[in-house]
């Protein structure tokens, strides 16, 4: 009986194919920072190569050709072939199938506004990183991350008053947004994988704010004014237009 060894080889092939598939469809952008994409690709090909080598070995080896472990006779009472040790037990195979089942049967979805409420990751206006490089980008070309970096790197936020901005993000609101005219245009930054996702955003003032569904993606164009927000001098984007837009192919920003 080598069903389990065959299943093991198949599982590696399928996991490898799944990794390559998320890369090809671009869904990988929902999970990890793009600078690790090549690593997922290498992992995919490695899994497929391992699977193929195992299949070849299974085809070319005799059924029960291997000696039992001399020093540890009671460790694997249920394993007819010790060639694969504990690793080919059914429960191990079942556990390793879980990522495949989640990946294949659940629709891939990036983190959204719900993830902020739930994990309690407060958005911060103090995201680190190279603040200086944000200044070298033309204001209308800056994304949410560039602006947040620029705000924290600036000696005084007053210098942002009157600057134009053109931003894409999802709509987020919490208790600090008292009236129906404010929301935040928000993005997640992902340094490594979604486990370290941090939500950041720019506060927007718009008459349309009340009609916007939380978590929906919008493109906001307008000019900054520096005002008090929750007791702090904060650049607030006064919207000239807010239009619904499709979620970008890469929903997260990669610092």
């Amino acid at each position, binding site marked *: 009986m080598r069903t389990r060894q065959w299943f093991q080889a198949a599982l590696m092939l399928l996991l490898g194919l799944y990794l390559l598939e998320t890369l090809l469809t671009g869904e990988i952008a929902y999970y990890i920072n793009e600078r690790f994409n090549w*690593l997922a690709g290498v*992992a995919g090909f490695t899994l497929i190569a*391992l699977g193929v080598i195992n299949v070849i070995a299974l085809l070319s080896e005799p059924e029960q050709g*291997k000696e039992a472990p001399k020093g540890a006779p009671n460790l694997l009472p249920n394993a007819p072939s010790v060639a694969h040790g504990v690793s080919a037990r059914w429960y*191990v195979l079942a556990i390793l199938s879980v990522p495949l089942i989640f*990946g294949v049967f659940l629709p891939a979805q*990036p983190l959204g506004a719900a993830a902020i409420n739930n994990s309690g990751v407060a958005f911060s206006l103090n995201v680190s990183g190279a603040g200086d490089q944000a200044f070298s980008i033309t204001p209308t070309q800056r994304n949410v991350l560039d602006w947040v970096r620029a705000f924290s790197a600036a000696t005084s936020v007053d210098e942002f008053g009157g600057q134009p901005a053109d931003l894409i993000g999802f709509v987020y609101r919490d208790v600090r947004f008292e009236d129906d005219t404010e929301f935040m245009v928000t993005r997640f930054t992902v340094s490594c994988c979604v486990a370290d996702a941090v939500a950041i955003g720019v506060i927007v003032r718009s008459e349309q704010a009340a009609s916007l569904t939380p978590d929906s993606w919008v493109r906001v164009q307008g000019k900054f004014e520096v005002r008090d927000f929750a007791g702090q001098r904060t650049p607030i984007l006064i919207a000239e237009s807010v239009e619904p837009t499709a979620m970008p192919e890469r929903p997260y920003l990669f610092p």
Partner: protein
Amino acid sequence: MEFSTQLSLFSTRFLGIFIEAVSFLLLGTIVSGLIEVFVRKEDIARLLPRNPFAAIVAGSFLGFLFPVCECGVVPVTRKLYQKGLPVAVGVAFLLAAPVMNPIVFASTYAAFGFGPILIGRFVITCIMAVAIGLIFSLQRNPIKMLHPRALMAMAGGSGAAAPQPSAPRLSVGQGIVRAARVATDEFFDMGRYLVMGTALAAGMQTFLSQEQIRALASDPSMSAVAMAIMAFVLSICSTTDAILALSFANFGFPSGSLLTFLTFGPMVDIKATLMYLSVFKRRVVFYMVILPLLMSLLFGIFINLNVRF
């Protein structure tokens, strides 16, 4: 919150951590397979310093030779044990390697620049790993600390793939096939702990609130405890945790607490702890969690209270 929303959040986090970590685990198992086939027991005995203290210090620097994070280090350590690496040296390697390697040096440098955090991270990690290695070297019968299965190749049974220690050198082609089959075994054996740990980490991120933990930032000792808890729960790869630590710095966490996060996290987190169980007995794993915890807290709180950068 609706169940479907939570399930979707859980699934995204679970797959995110899994995809990231599985690549590193695979690299670790491939290295492990190559060690199995191409490194002989005599090589280890020949290269390692005779003096136990020197050997443990060497073990904590071995990460510069095998650059692995905490997902990849476990299969490599287990394989080195099968090749006769002393247990205490392996402990020092296991605890230190996820930090003491060129990749982590680069990522910590990228996040914090050359300064107290970078130096502190490497110095404290090295001290902790050597100290814990020395404590483990006091054990008279170190083999008893290991899980029996971790030593199976020594007994001659880790598989079709395991050549006997005295076996003649293989051709490169044969060697690669054997290495691949060893890597397969390791991948499934470690992978089950990785999947369980990933599910736990994703579950905690989805179902627990981190707000209270972050609220502790201002207290010198509680903030270090909070960082240790975050390090354990988040299970972030050591190659990139520096970037996250930087975001904690912006929440007001002091440098000592960040160092607790940066030294404890790579040694101990949910998925690493589960993977340790495939190498060590349960009681030993307990010490391998509690000793780094206490030491990293001690360093972190001491720095918070006494050192101004």
